[in-house]
């Protein structure tokens, strides 16, 4: 059986290099047959694509997609640099 660290590294590399995702900052943790994705992306579609790529790279694991979608809000208070 392949060590989970190598599987996690392969998933993380795929998330960065797959043309559908190219997401560099996603954390991948494996515990037993469970794979957890954590991080932030700007859209729900990107979150789904990340889950799909992770599933394809490690189909034997159950993927828990815990990635948050963060929407950019309106600009807030200015900062004055004196």
């Amino acid at each position, binding site marked *: 059986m392949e060590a989970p660290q190598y599987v996690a590294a392969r998933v993380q590399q795929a998330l960065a290099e797959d043309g559908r995702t190219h997401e560099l900052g996603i954390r991948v943790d494996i515990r037993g047959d469970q794979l957890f994705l954590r991080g932030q992306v700007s859209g729900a579609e990107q979150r789904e694509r990340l889950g799909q790529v992770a599933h394809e790279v490690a189909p034997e694991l159950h993927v828990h997609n815990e990635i948050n979608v*963060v929407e950019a809000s*309106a*600009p807030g208070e*200015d900062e*004055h*640099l*004196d």
Partner: protein
Amino acid sequence: MTDLRIAAVGDIHLGEDVRGQYRKKLDGIEDRADVFMLAGDLTRHGTLEEGKVVADELRGLPIPVVAVLGNHDYHSDLQYEIASELRDAGVIVLDDDGVVVQCGDKKLGVVGGKGFGGGFAGKCASEFGEREIKNFVSHTRHIAEAWKVALKEIVADHRVVLSHYSPIKETLEGEPHEIYPFLGSYLLAEAVDTAGADLILHGHAHKGSEKGMTPGGIRVRNVALPVLGRAYCVYCLDCEDDMQSHEG
């Protein structure tokens, strides 16, 4: 004396599926800021189609727009074509050079480019050993030298440096320490400290923190959109009436 108001953001990562959405968030930016700066990673995969989306989102804004590219914008080896699309849309794209933007009665000098990595003093790569490592470090060194020369040559009331990679590790707090060498280099800060500037803006570190300063005391702001959580932030230089810094 009037404030010089700089709106800034990085890492907007636009793709064809979000066409038109970011532009809506720029409505009224001319009432809030004198210039809009983009700190790289404007696209997701660096394709020309994405570059055209970015160009369309920024086209015809009523204030000057200055941008640099980020590593994502280089991914498809189409960085020059993307820069050309942006320039055709009226965006000033810096590539290790500078520009002077007229903001009301002030001249704002902006110097910058993509920047690059290598790490921070005491924990960084050196130009030693294999050619690949030497190329990595010397790429950053050449960029830093170009910025220093551009900053010294520019004539303006204020000077701001616009980068994608970080010049300091303080604004990387939150990122894993192991990847700091891929997020920035102290060589960038050293160059700017030598030549002088009022502010450095960068992106790239989505999990980093917003505020820091160089060893020489120049304010640094990580304006990556995931860090700001907002469409852009506004930084004011020369604030005589309200000298208080709005922290937090």
